[in-house]
């Protein structure tokens, strides 16, 4: 964009045209996010500092991780509603396994990851082989996983998380050049985002997920192993739920209701990030910003002094609005 005095008006017009075309390509989620975030920043000066922005990003990271997992399943045409229960299970289960012993932190996380893979496998195999719609399977799994967590702990988990367990969720890298403090949770989220980006956008597997979500029969006929791909999507989703659970446990400590409703937040984040429900579309960066937008919006509601339950109501409106908008714009294209 070098400015020359000799540019004639038609060149200028075409340049503006090109820029406008570029602007039109930007998904609506980005301007929406920045508008909300800047409003939050004006209302609460804490968000004007580098530190404040990182605090925000640290808090939004678990939701972004959940949204990435949820998007994988949504893109394949299913739902994973067991994510929130999985988070509760990780937090309650870890408190039982840890029994206040720092030595056990890493093995505990390892065991939880195995449980995550197992739950994802059960979800995926049940959908694939019993042919039950995923919304029923994962709603059943929601009851089951939460039930196991509560049964195991007797309804009231005891003890505390050791510092080396909590560090993932609330720790910072100190004295990082330029940034100062850099949250560990954010780094974990970014690593996952990069891997997910390559898996989803650059690998065959990602294309197969989208193909299944778009048209199961067509992808089956062209040789996609539908059941395998679909099951893997559920495994990724449950595994990421475990990681989000470890981060949330580290951030907020032990509680039996952290996971309640998180599955809906993950769906909302994915949907406002432009993942088409019932499959066929999705984007890792957009979905991450979908999660950031949701978190920023919750902050905004908080700053405006609305009682907490209204978070739910606003979320409901957002989901319906986003899906109606998507339905409207795809109809227009036809």
């Amino acid at each position, binding site marked *: 964009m070098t400015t020359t005095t000799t540019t004639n008006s038609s060149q200028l017009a075409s340049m503006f045209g090109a820029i406008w075309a570029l602007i039109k390509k930007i998904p609506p989620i980005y301007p929406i996010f920045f508008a909300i975030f800047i409003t939050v920043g004006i209302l609460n000066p804490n968000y004007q500092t580098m530190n404040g922005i990182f605090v925000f990003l640290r808090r939004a990271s678990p939701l972004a991780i959940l949204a990435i997992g949820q998007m994988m399943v949504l893109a*394949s*045409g*299913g*739902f994973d509603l067991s994510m929130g229960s999985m988070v509760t299970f990780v937090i309650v289960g870890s408190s039982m396994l840890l029994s206040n012993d720092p030595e056990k932190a890493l093995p505990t996380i390892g065991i939880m990851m195995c449980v995550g893979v197992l739950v994802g496998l059960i979800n995926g195999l*049940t*959908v*694939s*082989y*019993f*042919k*039950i*719609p*995923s*919304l*029923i*399977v994962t*709603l*059943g*799994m*929601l*009851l*089951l*996983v*939460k*039930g*196991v967590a*509560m*049964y195991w702990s*007797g*309804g009231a988990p005891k003890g505390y998380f050791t510092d080396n367990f909590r560090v993932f969720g609330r720790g910072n890298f100190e004295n990082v050049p330029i940034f100062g403090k850099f949250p560990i949770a954010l780094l974990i989220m970014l690593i996952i985002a990069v891997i997910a980006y390559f898996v989803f956008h650059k690998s065959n597997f990602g294309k197969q997920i989208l193909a299944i*979500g778009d048209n*199961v*029969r067509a992808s*089956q006929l062209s040789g996609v192993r*539908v059941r395998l791909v679909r099951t893997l999507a559920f495994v990724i989703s449950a595994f990421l739920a475990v990681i989000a659970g470890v981060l949330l446990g580290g951030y907020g400590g032990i509680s039996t209701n952290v996971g309640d409703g998180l599955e*809906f937040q993950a*769906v909302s984040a994915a*949907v406002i990030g432009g993942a088409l*429900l*019932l*499959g066929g579309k999705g984007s890792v960066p957009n979905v991450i910003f979908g999660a950031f937008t949701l978190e920023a919006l919750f902050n905004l509601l908080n700053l405006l002094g609305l*009682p*907490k*339950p*209204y*978070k*739910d*109501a*606003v*979320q*409901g*409106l957002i*989901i*319906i609005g986003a*899906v*109606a908008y998507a*339905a*409207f714009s795809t*109809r227009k294209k036809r």
Partner: protein
Amino acid sequence: MTTSAISQNGFLRFIRRIPPVYFFLILVFVGGAILDVTFADGQMVTNPTILTNILVRSVALGIVAVGQTFVIIGASIDLSVALVVSVTAVMTSFIMQGDPAKVPLAIGVVLAIGVVTGMVNGFIITKLKVNAFIATLGTTLILRGILNASFANFKGSVPRSFEYFGYGKIGPVPVSILALLIVLLAGWFILARTKYGFQLYGTGGNVEVARLSGLRTDRVLIIAHIISSLTAVLTGLFLVSRLRAGAPWIGTDGVYDLESVATTVIGGTALAGGKGGVWGTIGGVLIFSVIDTLFNQMGVNPFMKNILRGVIVILAVASYTIRSRREAA
């Protein structure tokens, strides 16, 4: 139906018309009775009170499942029923405040809430083209937000006279069971004997074909959603008359959303829409009540109950879907 049982041939045809869920029901009941006699006191078969309780337990889920059957036949789904149950229970006891004179007002208000919720659901699904699951999930979140922001605990109470719905008896038969029976018969009549019923099956079977052959499919679906919300309101009224006061968690704790969908599917109504009926659904509901009663008899830990519920829902639905050729999503 009774006349066909006269001849041998007709009898076989009658047997074949019974939804397969009833054979499962007999299986579950016999299995449950054996478990009860062996491991508990065996009252499930000997004590008539417990037998009636199986039916009373079916009332809450049964009424709302009839409405769910309507929307699922229309190839839609209604996840907002649990919250409608909660809203009804809370609003009823909040408005009544134990005053018998306010009963009609309260019932009028909650019925209006039901109609509006159903209309909003139907409108979002048909006019805004939002997937039914997401649409009703959205209204669930909206209702939950408003409800939890306004009420935190049991509010108000219902007058003694209103408890008649939950505890009253006509002769030996509890009023609540009669209410369920009336809802069932009305549901059966609408589905099998009225023009609207045929329109609903047509819309659920193939919405494009139905629309092209002149059906106003949007209106058909909106009405189905209103019916579903109204049955949820009835369930809420029944629950609050039994509990004597409403709390915001009544509907969600009963898992009426998932269980009404599950019992409908177990009863033979395909989630893809276009076929099924209320008699199958009530069979599914009875299975759940028998299992629930069995859990109580055996003193199963409440958390364990939730685990088993999750497993049973999945397995029960699987027994129906496993034969389908289509890939699920």
